[in-house]
């Protein structure tokens, strides 16, 4: 058993870190977050050149064919850099949905251009009831047309097509389709924009069954948890650096146990989230029977940890932590968005409870 990264996994993670550090430094994040869509075409084409837009998809559709653990590593590094724009929406979410639910013909039509970096996409799930339980979805297609609205849709304004989850199927709506209206929701995370998407007799192409979405959503959920891990790591790094250099009472504040022990807890929370995320990636890759539980465990833990690591990071920075110019709040904002996306810790605890209390227990692979 080897619960460390392989050489090629290490290489992928390192090169992603260097890539994001070079192409997406803090100044670029701040520039993009002030734009309407946080999207930058030249950054996107560089992501494509790296193979990131096709990372886990089959080579038949122009993908790179890597595994879910590799996806976790890439998302971790994207999270560390606070990569703005529609990468999660397009590649992870829409990509996984297309890869999971639709036919080869639809994959050629929709997934392949994503791999090639030609299109942006997103998935519209939540409605006004804001429930992540698929049973609560009301929107229903009739005669190939959609009428209704979806909330909290990420990056919809920059998407070339929107995948819509309806009661009676999964549909693709072209961004130029009749009766489609996309309007921004003003939310805490400035780097991943949210929208209301309204349909009024809008033509939609059915690509799959709603019941088949579970695995794609599990992949997206785990990837979000991975992204949270990267954000936690960056918050920890910034905070520890500050605690080493900031002096009060003539000493670096990191020398005070009230501060140092909070840093230790940030480390513990970050590492534990990482363990849970890597395990979830592996379980998804292996189609392990406990994959769904592992995903919920990772998202549950990382959702809470992302917030508490941010809380501690801001607190340790003192007044500086409360300023706009300090990056910690940017990660904190992202963490809030990611915490609620695909179910917060409370949601996933109930999901875990239904798996371990109501259906008997499933556990991480033991020797």
């Amino acid at each position, binding site marked *: 058993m080897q*619960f460390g990264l392989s050489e090629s996994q290490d290489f992928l993670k390192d090169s992603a870190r260097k890539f994001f550090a070079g192409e997406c430094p803090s100044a670029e994040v701040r520039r993009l977050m002030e734009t309407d869509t946080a999207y930058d075409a030249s950054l996107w084409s560089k992501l494509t050149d790296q193979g990131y837009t096709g990372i886990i998809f089959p080579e038949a559709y122009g993908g790179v064919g890597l595994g879910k653990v590799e996806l976790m590593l890439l998302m971790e590094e994207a999270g560390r850099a606070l990569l703005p724009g529609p990468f999660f929406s397009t590649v992870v979410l829409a990509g996984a949905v297309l890869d999971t639910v639709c036919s080869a013909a639809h994959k050629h039509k929709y997934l392949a251009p994503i791999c090639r970096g030609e299109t942006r996409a997103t998935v519209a799930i939540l409605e006004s009831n804001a429930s992540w339980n698929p049973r609560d979805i009301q929107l229903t297609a009739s005669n190939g047309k959609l009428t209704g609205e979806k909330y909290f849709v990420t990056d919809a304004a920059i998407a070339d097509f929107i995948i819509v989850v309806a009661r009676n199927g999964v549909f693709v709506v072209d961004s130029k389709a009749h009766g489609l209206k996309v309007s921004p929701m003003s939310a805490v995370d400035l780097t991943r924009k949210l929208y209301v998407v309204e349909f009024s007799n809008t033509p939609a192409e059915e690509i799959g069954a709603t019941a088949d979405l579970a695995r794609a959503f599990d992949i997206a959920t785990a990837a979000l948890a991975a992204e949270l891990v990267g954000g936690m790591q960056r918050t920890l790094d910034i905070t*520890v650096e500050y605690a080493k250099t900031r002096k009060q009472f003539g000493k670096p504040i990191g020398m005070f146990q009230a501060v*140092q022990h909070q*840093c230790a807890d940030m480390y513990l929370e970050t590492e534990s989230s990482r363990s849970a995320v*890597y395990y979830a990636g592996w379980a998804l890759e292996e189609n392990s029977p406990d994959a769904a539980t592992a995903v919920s465990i990772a998202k549950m*833990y990382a959702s809470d940890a992302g917030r508490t690591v941010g809380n501690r990071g801001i607190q340790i920075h003192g007044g500086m932590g409360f300023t706009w110019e300090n990056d910690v709040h940017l990660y904190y904002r992202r963490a809030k968005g990611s915490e609620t996306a695909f179910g917060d810790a409370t949601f996933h605890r109930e999901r875990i409870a239904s798996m371990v209390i109501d259906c008997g227990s499933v556990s991480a692979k033991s020797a």
Partner: protein
Amino acid sequence: MDLNLTEDELAFRDELRSWLAANFPKDWADWREKPIEESFPYLRAWQRKLQEGRWAAVSWPKEYEGRSATLMQQAIFWEEMARVEAPPMANSLGLGLIGPTIIAFGTEAQKKRFIPKILNAEEIWCQGFSEPNAGSDLAGLQTEAVLSGDHYIVNGQKVWTSYGWVGDWCELVVRTDPNVPKHKGLTVLLVDMKSPGIEVRPLRQMTGESEFNELFFRDVRVPVENVLGKVNDGWNVAMSTLMYERGSYGARLHLIFKRYITRLIELARNIQRDGRPAAQDPIIRQKLAQCSAEIEIMRCNQMRAFSRVTATGVPGPEGSIQKIFWSELNQRLQQIAQEILGPYGQLLAGDPRAIDNGMWSYAYLRTRGNTIEAGTSEVQRNIIGHFVLGLPRSY
């Protein structure tokens, strides 16, 4: 990353499983509830049986009757022992902590003298580290050893000594030079517990039992050949022992905690709360789920740490994460048990209405010690802060 067992690991596990199937003591159930004073000869016999199968010290080098087991194999060993709920080994400190320290620092004569009798449980070992005024600040210990001819004369007091009451030998940390910085004047002595001048007293703990002892040393003579390692290098020797304390042994915790939570879920299905089973109460469900999840994360953390140590070759300060994680998790687990059991949770062993014969009230009290023993949570956070994160020393 590959979480499947390798062929070597599978072979190791299967060999152990078939050995256990043939040799597991069938009468253990009759003994397990008895006080350790009574069952101790039984535990010695069990260790001897393991040694006959070369299973008593799998981590030890082959030349010392071990199996040179990898860290992952050691983890498998402890998991398998937990899976069958095997009896503990009588000489657990000798095998787990002190034997490896003697192998690392001892002279050939010391190894020859001590190692075989550690393995066959003929000589039980205890550890004389903590003192009334030296707990977290271990290096501040005051028990002194003064050289007089070819003997050290030891005076002082130790506390929290496990197995003190049955110990034949003690790994004792003493101050041999009071005139140098505190870490530099310590020496480790191997002390015969039958030496004149040693008094062993039980230390009654908040659970009511006495797992530990206090040791008193009055003019105890220890021959110079019983110095372990170099004189005044005792800090390094002692730290090496403590490193083993945070080793693969923790692998068994996953199964132990799983057994707790499985039992708790079963209880929660049967205990009524506001007119329905506690297992249907949303708050209880949230808490059980949190604990179940953390038990899995604890295991993932452990496996990641084992893989890292295997890759780098040295156990690092990351072990502190495991210590904080399991000890605080165990406390939360017991608190949830109390919430589920309600008033029944307080009943002690022997009360006819106690659930699981008072196991839960005992565990509730006993787990308070978890964040103190083997390095307090505060010390672990200092270790992470300083040695992992590179923050300045806070003490």
